[in-house]
C-alpha cells in the first residue's frame, strides 16, 4: 500500500516521459494530475489506517525488498509510515496535487512536448520526495534526497534556452552537491558508529547514550547531516542557490522551493530527533544558524524588487525559523511551522504566479501596483497568505511561528528569541511591502518591456496576447489557478488549528500526534527521561508554570506582526517618499542589502576562482595533458610501431592465409601420426 504512494507518480512520469511528445496537453496534464491525486488518496487512506492504531505503536512498516546484502550488512528497501512521515506525505501529495492542477493552466503556453516534459519532471519529483519521506533508513532516504535534487535541477533549468536559467540550475545542483557531500559523510559516520542505517535502530542505540557534553562523534555525525540539511534547505552558508532557483516556473518554485523539497532538511533532522537531541553542541549551532539565516534573509527580502525573489528570501527566512525550532529542540513546533508554511508559501507563490501571468511576465514590483481591482481573487487570496505568514493572530502562521518563539524562549534562548521576534517584524514588513506595492497604490507607468528580460518568464510570453503588460483589462487567474489559490487560502487559515496550543484551549494535538516520531519507538527504561520530548513533559510543565508567559509572548508576537504591517503601510502606502528618504539616509546599508551582503561575490572570489585556477592550470594543463595524455599516446605509439612491423605478415592474399592455416593442419596431423 505504501509502495503505491511513490509508485503512482513514478508511473505518471514514465507515461509522460515516454509518450509525452505524442500526447496532447490535456492528456499529458491529466495523466500527471491523476497520478498525484491518486497518490494523495492512497496517502489519505494510509494515514487513516495509521491514526486507527494506538498512539505509541503508530507505525506502518512495509518492506519492499532487500536492496543490498553484502556480508553482515543489509540495506532493505523498506517504507515506514509514522506520524511525522504522515504529515509530510499529506503535505507533499496534497499541495502537490493543487500545484499540478494550477500548472495545467499556468504552463498552457508551452508546446505539447515541453508541457509533457514539465509534468513528467513534476511527477518524478513527487515520487522521489515521497521516497525520501517514507524511507525507513538513510540509504532509501538518500535515494529520494538525490532524486529531488535532480528534479529541482531539471525544473530550475526547465527553459534551457535561457542562459540565466541554466546557470541557476547548475548553481543549485552544485551547491546541493556540497551539502550532499556532508550528508553522505554523516551517513557513513553514523553507519560506522552505530553499525546500521535504519533510523529506528540508530535512534534506539543513540537513546542509550548520554547526551554529549563535549563535541563528540554524535555531534560530528549530526553536524555533517546538518550540513547536508543546509544544502537542501538553503541555510547559511549554502542558501545562495534558492533565490536564483526562481528562474524556474513559478509553480515549481511553489512546490519544490517553498513547500516540499527545501523542507527536506528540516524533516531529516526531525526524523533523527533522538540522534540530534544527544548532540547539544550541534543543536546550538543549528539554532544559531537558523536564527541568523532568518534574520539575514529577512533583511535582504526588505529591498528586493523582484516579486519572486522577495518570496524566495522569505522562504529562506521561514526555513531559518524551522531550523531555529529544531535547534531549540522544539521538533514538533518546527514540523508544525513546516506544515503551515507549506500552505501559505505555496499560496503566495501561486498568487505571485497569477500576477506574473496576468502581467505577461512582469516580475518587477516597481512596475506593478493597483492590481487589487483587476485581480480580486488573486488579491484576496494573496492577502490571506500575507497575513498568515506575517503571523496575524487567528491564521496558520501565527500559531506555528508563535509556537517556535515560545519554545525558544521557554528553552532559555533569550537572544535567539529576540532575533526571532525581530525577524517576525521584518517578515511582516517585507510581505506587506510586497502586497502594497503590487496591489495598492496607483499603477506605475512602465515601459512595455522590463529592463532585465532575463527575469521574465518565457512561459508568460504567450500571455502577452492579452494586450500590453499593463493593459487595463487584465484577466484574473483562470479557473484552474483560482481553485488552487482558494483551496490554499482556506488551508492557510484553517491549517493552524490542529496545532492550537493548550493555552488557547486546543490541546496541541499535532505535537501529541507527532510525539512518537521524536522518541524511540519502544523506549528503553533508561532512555525515558533522556529522550527529549517537546510535545509531552515540556507541554505539561509549560501548562502550569508559564501559561502566563506564553500569553505574554503571544501578545508580543501578535503586536510585532501588526506593527510590521503598520510600518509597511506607512512606508509604502501613505508616503512612498519615506522609504526613499530612509534609503537616502543609509545608502551603504541599502546597497549591502540589495546586493545580498555580497555573498555571491564573496563565494565566487573565495571558492569558485581558486578551484577554477587549480583545475585549469594544475589539473588540466599539468596532470591531464602532460601525464595522462602522455602515457596514453606513448602506449598508442608503441603499439602502432609494433603493428606497423607486424602487419607485413598480412599480405591480404587469401591463399597465403589458407596456406598458413594448412601448414597447421599438416603439422598437427603429422604430429599425431608421429606419436
Amino acid at each position: 500500500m505504501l509502495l503505491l504512494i511513490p509508485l503512482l507518480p513514478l508511473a505518471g512520469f514514465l507515461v509522460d516521459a515516454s509518450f509525452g511528445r505524442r500526447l496532447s496537453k490535456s492528456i499529458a496534464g491529466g495523466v500527471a494530475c491523476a497520478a498525484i491525486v491518486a497518490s494523495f488518496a492512497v496517502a489519505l487512506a494510509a494515514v487513516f489506517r495509521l491514526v486507527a492504531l494506538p498512539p505509541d505503536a503508530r507505525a506502518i512498516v512495509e518492506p519492499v525488498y532487500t536492496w543490498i546484502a553484502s556480508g553482515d550488512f543489509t540495506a532493505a528497501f523498506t517504507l515506514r509510515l509514522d506520524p511525522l512521515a504522515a504529515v509530510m506525505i499529506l503535505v507533499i501529495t496534497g499541495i502537490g496535487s493543487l500545484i499540478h492542477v494550477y500548472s495545467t493552466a499556468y504552463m498552457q503556453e508551452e508546446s505539447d512536448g515541453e508541457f509533457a516534459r514539465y509534468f513528467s519532471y513534476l511527477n518524478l519529483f513527487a515520487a522521489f520526495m515521497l521516497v525520501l519521506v517514507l524511507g525507513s533508513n538513510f540509504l532509501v532516504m538518500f535515494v529520494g534526497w538525490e532524486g529531488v535534487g535532480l528534479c529541482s535541477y531539471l525544473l530550475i533549468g526547465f527553459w534551457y534556452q535561457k542562459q540565466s536559467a541554466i546557470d541557476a540550475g547548475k548553481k543549485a545542483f552544485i551547491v546541493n552537491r556540497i551539502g550532499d557531500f556532508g550528508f553522505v559523510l554523516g551517513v557513513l559516520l553514523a553507519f560506522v558508529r552505530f553499525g546500521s542505517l535504519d533510523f529506528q535502530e540508530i535512534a534506539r542505540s543513540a537513546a542509550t547514550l548520554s547526551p554529549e557534553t563535549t563535541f563528540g562523534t554524535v555531534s560530528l555525525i549530526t553536524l555533517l547531516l546538518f550540513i547536508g540539511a543546509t544544502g537542501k534547505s538553503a541555510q547559511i552558508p549554502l542558501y545562495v542557490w534558492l533565490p536564483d532557483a526562481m528562474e524556474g516556473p513559478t509553480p515549481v518554485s511553489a512546490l519544490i522551493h517553498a513547500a516540499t523539497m527545501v523542507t527536506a532538511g528540516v524533516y531529516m533532522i526531525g526524523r533523527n530527533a533522538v540522534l540530534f537531541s544527544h548532540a547539544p553542541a550541534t543543536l546550538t549551532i543549528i539554532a544559531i544558524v537558523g536564527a541568523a539565516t532568518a534574520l539575514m534573509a529577512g533583511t535582504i527580502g526588505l529591498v528586493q524588487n523582484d516579486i519572486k525573489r522577495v518570496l524566495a528570501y522569505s522562504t529562506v527566512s521561514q526555513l531559518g525559523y524551522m531550523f531555529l525550532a529544531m535547534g531549540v529542540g522544539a521538533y514538533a513546533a518546527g514540523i508544525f511551522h513546516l506544515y503551515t508554511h507549506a500552505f501559505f508559501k505555496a499560496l503566495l507563490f501561486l498568487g505571485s504566479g497569477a500576477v506574473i501571468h496576468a502581467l505577461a511576465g512582469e516580475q518587477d514590483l516597481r512596475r506593478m501596483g493597483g492590481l487589487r481591482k483587476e485581480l480580486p481573487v488573486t488579491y484576496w487570496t494573496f492577502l490571506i497568505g500575507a497575513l498568515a505568514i506575517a503571523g496575524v493572530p487567528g491564521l496558520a502562521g501565527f500559531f506555528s511561528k508563535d509556537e517556535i518563539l515560545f519554545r525558544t524562549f521557554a528553552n532559555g534562548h533569550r537572544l535567539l528569541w529576540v532575533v526571532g521576534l525581530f525577524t517576525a517584524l521584518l517578515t511582516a514588513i517585507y510581505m506587506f511591502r510586497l502586497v502594497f506595492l503590487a496591489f495598492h497604490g496607483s499603477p506605475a507607468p512602465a515601459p512595455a518591456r522590463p529592463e532585465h528580460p532575463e527575469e521574465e518568464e518565457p512561459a508568460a510570453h504567450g500571455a502577452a496576447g492579452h494586450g500590453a503588460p499593463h493593459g487595463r483589462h487584465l484577466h484574473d487567474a483562470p479557473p484552474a489557478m483560482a481553485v488552487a489559490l482558494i483551496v490554499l487560502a482556506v488551508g492557510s487559515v484553517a491549517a493552524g488549528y490542529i496545532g492550537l496550543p493548550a493555552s488557547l484551549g486546543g490541546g496541541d494535538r499535532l505535537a501529541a500526534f507527532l510525539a512518537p516520531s521524536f522518541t524511540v519507538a519502544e523506549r528503553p527504561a533508561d532512555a525515558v527521561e533522556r529522550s527529549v520530548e517537546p510535545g509531552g513533559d515540556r507541554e505539561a510543565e509549560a501548562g502550569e508554570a508559564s501559561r502566563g508567559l506564553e500569553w505574554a509572548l503571544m501578545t508580543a508576537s501578535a503586536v510585532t506582526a501588526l506593527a510590521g504591517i503598520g510600518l509597511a503601510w506607512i512606508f509604502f502606502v501613505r508616503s512612498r517618499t519615506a522609504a526613499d528618504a530612509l534609503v537616502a539616509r543609509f545608502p551603504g546599508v541599502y546597497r549591502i542589502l540589495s546586493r545580498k551582503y555580497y555573498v555571491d561575490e564573496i563565494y565566487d572570489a573565495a571558492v569558485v576562482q581558486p578551484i577554477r585556477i587549480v583545475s585549469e592550470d594544475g589539473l588540466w594543463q599539468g596532470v591531464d595533458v602532460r601525464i595522462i595524455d602522455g602515457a596514453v599516446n606513448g602506449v598508442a605509439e608503441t603499439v602502432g610501431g609494433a603493428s606497423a612491423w607486424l602487419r607485413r605478415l598480412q599480405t591480404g592474399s587469401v591463399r597465403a592465409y589458407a596456406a598458413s592455416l594448412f601448414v597447421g593442419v599438416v603439422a598437427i596431423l603429422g604430429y599425431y601420426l608421429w606419436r
Partner: protein
Amino acid sequence: MFDLFAGVAVIASLLVIAQRNPIYSVLLLIASFGALSGLYVLLDAPFVAVIQIIVYAGAIMVLFLFVVMLLNAPHEMTEEDIEHPLAIVRSGATRLGGLLALALVVELVWALTRHGGESGVFGNAAVSSVAAIGRLLFTEYAFPFEVTSLLILVAMVSAVILARREGGPDAAPAGLAEPDLSRAPAGTEGDR
C-alpha cells in the same frame, strides 16, 4: 572396374587443376564426378550415384559453366599477373601449397596403410534401397533436412543480392543462379 573409375577420377581431377582454361577444368571435373558416381554404384549406392550426376554434374557444374562463359574467364598468368606487386608472395604461397598438398597425401596414405589399414571386403549387407534412405532421411534426419532447405533459401537470396548489378534488376548470373540452386532440393525430393 574400381581401378578404372579411380584412375579416371584421379587423372581428371589432376587435369582439372592443371588446366589453364577454366572451361576445360569444369568439363574435366564433370568427368571426374561421373567416375565418382560410378564408384558409388560399385558401393551399392545407386541412388547417391544418380543424385551425384543430377545435382553436381547437372546443376552445380552448369552454374560454374555459366559463370565461366559469362565472365569469359581470362586465361591465367597474363602480364598483369607477372608484374603484380605480390608476385613473389604468391609464387611462394603456390610452391608452399604444392608441397603441403604433397605432404598431406603422403601423411594420409601413410596413416591409412601403416597398420595395413581397413583390409578385407565389405562384410555388412548394403543398404541400397531408396525407400530405406528416404525413410531415414525423413525420420531421423528430418531436422537437418529442414535446416538445409533453410540454408538453400538463404544462399539463393544472397546469391541474387550479391550478383545483382547496382541499381538495375538482378543480372543474368543471379537469374541463372536460382534454378541451379533450387535444383538441389528438387534432386533430393525426387526420391520420396
